[in-house]
C-alpha cells in the first residue's frame, strides 16, 4: 500500500441508528391493521353469503307452501262442485248423504288450506286474498240451502241451480285463486329482486374492503421495502468499512513485521561489520603491538588480558548479530540459514533437527526467504519449548512455481483446533501476506505437522531462472 492510499480511511462517516420504538410500533400497527382488514372482509363475506342463502331458501319455501295451499283450494273448489252436483242428481237418499259428507270434508280441507295461506300472507296479496275468502264464504252460503231441499225440489231446481249459481260462482272464485297465484309468483320475483339487492350491497362492500386492503398493503410494502433497502445499504457500507479496516490492519501488521526485519538486519549488520570488524582489527593491532613491544612480562600480561577481553567481545557481538538475523540468510541464502538454525537449536536443546532442502534456489526473493526462515524459527522454538520433541524434520521443496515447507515433530502435540498462540498467528499472518496458505495439524500425543505453501511471483521466478 502506498502512503497516499491512507486518505481512504476517513471516507465513511455515516452510521446507522438501531431500529427505534416508533418504527417497531408502526410496523406492528400497519401489518396488524392489514391482517385485521383481511380478516374482517373474510368474515363479512361469509356472513353475507350465508344470509343470502337463507333468504333464498326461505323465499322458495314460502312460495311452494302458498302454491300448494292455492292448489288445494282450487282442487277443493272443483271437488265441491262435483260433490254438489252428485248430491243433487242422486235419487238414493243414503248415497246422497255420503256425497254431502264428502262435501263437508272438502270444506274442512279448504278452510285448513285458507288458514295455512293466511298465516304467510304478505302485503300485496292481502286484498285479493280477502276477496277470495269473501267469495268462498259466499260460495258456501249459496250451497247451504241446497241441502235442505226435498227430492222434488232437487229434481225441479237443481239443474238451474247448477248452471246459474254453482258453476259461475265456482269459476269466479277460481279466477281469484288464479290471481292470487299470479301475485304469489310476483312475490317470488320480488324476493329474487331483493336478493339481488343484498348481493349488490355485498359486492360493493367487498370491493371497498379489497381496495382499502390493497391500498394499505401497497403503502406498507413500499415503506418496508424502503426501510429494508436502507438497512441493506447500511449493512453493505459497514461490511466494506470492516473489510477495509481489516485490510489496513493486515497491511499495518505486515509493515510492522517488515520494519522489524529491516531493523534487525541493520543492527545485525552494524554489529557484525562495524563493531565485530573493529574488534578484529583491534586484535590484529594487539598482535602487531606484541611483536614490536619489549619482552616485559607485565606488559605481556596486560596485552594478553586485553586480547582475551576483545576476543570475548567478538564472540558476544557475533552471537548477538546471528540471533537478530543470521548473516547466512543474506549472504548465502535460505538453506544455509536453515541449516545453521537447525544446528544451533540442536546444540542448545539436544533435539535432532534435519533439513532437507535440495531443490531450493539460493536467491529466493527477500520477503519469501525471510518469511520461511522466521516460520521455521518459530516452529523450532515451539518444538523445543512446548512440544518437547526429540526430533524434527524440516523439508523445503521448490516445485512448479511454489515453495512448500513442512516441519514435522514427534513431540507431545496439542489440540490444534482449539489452541492457537500468538506465535502461530504471526506465522500465519506472514504466510498469507505473501499469498500462501498455512496448515497446522496436531493432536495430543501425535506430534505436530506444519505445512505451508507460498507461490513464487513471476518476477521472482525470472530472477531465479
Amino acid at each position: 500500500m502506498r502512503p497516499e492510499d491512507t486518505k481512504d480511511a476517513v471516507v465513511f462517516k455515516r452510521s446507522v441508528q438501531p431500529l427505534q420504538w416508533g418504527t417497531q410500533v408502526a410496523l406492528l400497527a400497519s401489518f396488524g391493521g392489514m391482517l385485521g382488514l383481511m380478516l374482517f372482509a373474510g368474515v363479512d363475506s361469509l356472513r353475507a353469503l350465508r344470509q343470502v342463502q337463507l333468504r333464498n331458501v326461505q323465499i322458495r319455501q314460502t312460495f311452494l307452501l302458498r302454491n300448494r295451499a292455492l292448489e288445494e283450494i282450487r282442487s277443493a273448489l272443483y271437488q265441491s262442485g262435483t260433490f254438489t252436483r252428485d248430491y243433487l242428481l242422486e235419487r238414493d237418499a243414503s248415497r246422497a248423504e255420503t256425497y254431502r259428507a264428502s262435501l263437508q270434508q272438502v270444506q274442512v280441507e279448504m278452510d285448513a288450506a285458507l288458514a295455512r295461506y293466511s298465516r304467510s300472507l304478505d302485503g300485496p296479496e292481502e286484498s285479493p286474498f280477502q276477496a277470495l275468502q269473501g267469495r268462498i264464504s259466499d260460495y258456501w252460503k249459496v250451497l247451504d240451502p241446497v241441502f235442505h231441499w226435498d227430492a222434488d225440489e232437487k229434481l225441479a231446481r237443481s239443474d238451474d241451480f247448477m248452471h246459474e249459481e254453482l258453476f259461475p260462482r265456482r269459476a269466479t272464485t277460481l279466477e281469484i285463486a288464479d290471481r292470487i297465484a299470479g301475485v304469489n309468483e310476483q312475490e317470488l320475483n320480488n324476493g329474487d329482486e331483493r336478493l339481488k339487492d343484498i348481493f349488490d350491497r355485498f359486492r360493493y362492500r367487498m370491493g371497498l374492503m379489497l381496495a382499502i386492503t390493497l391500498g394499505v398493503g401497497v403503502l406498507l410494502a413500499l415503506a418496508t421495502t424502503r426501510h429494508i433497502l436502507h438497512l441493506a445499504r447500511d449493512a453493505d457500507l459497514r461490511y466494506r468499512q470492516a473489510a477495509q479496516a481489516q485490510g489496513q490492519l493486515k497491511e499495518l501488521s505486515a509493515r510492522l513485521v517488515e520494519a522489524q526485519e529491516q531493523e534487525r538486519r541493520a543492527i545485525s549488520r552494524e554489529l557484525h561489520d562495524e563493531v565485530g570488524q573493529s574488534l578484529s582489527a583491534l586484535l590484529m593491532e594487539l598482535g602487531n603491538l606484541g611483536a614490536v613491544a619489549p619482552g616485559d612480562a607485565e606488559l605481556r600480561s596486560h596485552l594478553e588480558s586485553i586480547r582475551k577481553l576483545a576476543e570475548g567481545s567478538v564472540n558476544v557481538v557475533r552471537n548477538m548479530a546471528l540471533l537478530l538475523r543470521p548473516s547466512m540468510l543474506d549472504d548465502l541464502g535460505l538453506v544455509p540459514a536453515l541449516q545453521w538454525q537447525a544446528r544451533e537449536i540442536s546444540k542448545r536443546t539436544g533435539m535432532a533437527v534435519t533439513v532437507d532442502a535440495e531443490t531450493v534456489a539460493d536467491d529466493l526473493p527477500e520477503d519469501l526467504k525471510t518469511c520461511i526462515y522466521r516460520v521455521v524459527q518459530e516452529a523450532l522454538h515451539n518444538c523445543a519449548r512446548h512440544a518437547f520433541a526429540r526430533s524434527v524434520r524440516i523439508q523445503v521443496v521448490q516445485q512448479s512455481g511454489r515453495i512448500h515447507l513442512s516441519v514435522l515433530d514427534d513431540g507431545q502435540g496439542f489440540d490444534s483446533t482449539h489452541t492457537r498462540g500468538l506465535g502461530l498467528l504471526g506465522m500465519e499472518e506472514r504466510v498469507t501476506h505473501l499469498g500462501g496458505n498455512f496448515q497446522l495439524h496436531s493432536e495430543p500425543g501425535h506430534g505436530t505437522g506444519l505445512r505451508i505453501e507460498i507461490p513464487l511471483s513471476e518476477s521472482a521466478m525470472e530472477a531465479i531462472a
Partner: protein
Amino acid sequence: MSPVRILLADDHTVMRNGLRLLLERQPHLQVVGEAADGRQAVAISESANPDVVIMDIGMPNLNGIEATRQIVNRNPRTAIAILSMHSDESYVIRALKAGARAYLLKDSAEADLLAAVRALTEGKSFFSPAISKILVEDYMRQLESRGAEDTYELLTNREREILQLLAEGRTNKEVANMLNLSLYTVETHRTHILQKLNLHSVPELILYAVRKGIIA
C-alpha cells in the same frame, strides 16, 4: 627464493593496515595490492597475479565468496585464504566450493595467518583451529544425536591415506606420484571414498577431514 606475493581484500582499512603490518614483518612475504571490495579484488588479481589472496567475505559490490570463484576460475593457481568473522560451517563449505583453500577466523588472524600462508605455499589446506574445533564438535554432536555409525571405519588403509592427501589440497596427479599409483587407480579410490562417506565433492571431503581431525 622469490617472495610470496600477497593481495589483501577487506573493506576495513584498519584491518588491511594491521594485516599488511603483520605480513610484511616476514621478509619472504610481500603485499602486492589491497582491495576494498570484491570487484577490485578480481581486477587486481588479474593485473598483479598474486600467489595468495587474503579475502574477507562481507564486502560491498561483490562478496568474497563470489570474488574467490571468479579469481580461481581465471587462474586456478591462485591460492585463496578466506579471512572472515563467520565461523559457521555453511560459510566454510561455501568458500571451499568456490575454490578457497584456507579458512581463517578474524579474531585469531594474528596467530594463524602466517601458518595459513605457509600451508598454502606448500599446496596444502589450512583451517583456523577455532574453525576446526567448531566443525569437529558439530560433527560429533550429529553423530551422537542420529546414532549413525562412524563411516570412517568403512575405509581401507589405502583409502584413508588418499583421503588425507586429497583433503590437504593435493591433486589426483600429485597423489598418484606420491604413492606410486596410476592416475586411474587414484581416481577409482577417490570415487569409492566419496561413496562410502556419502559425500559429493572434494570441498565436502575437505570439510569431512577437518571434522574428523585428519587435517588441521
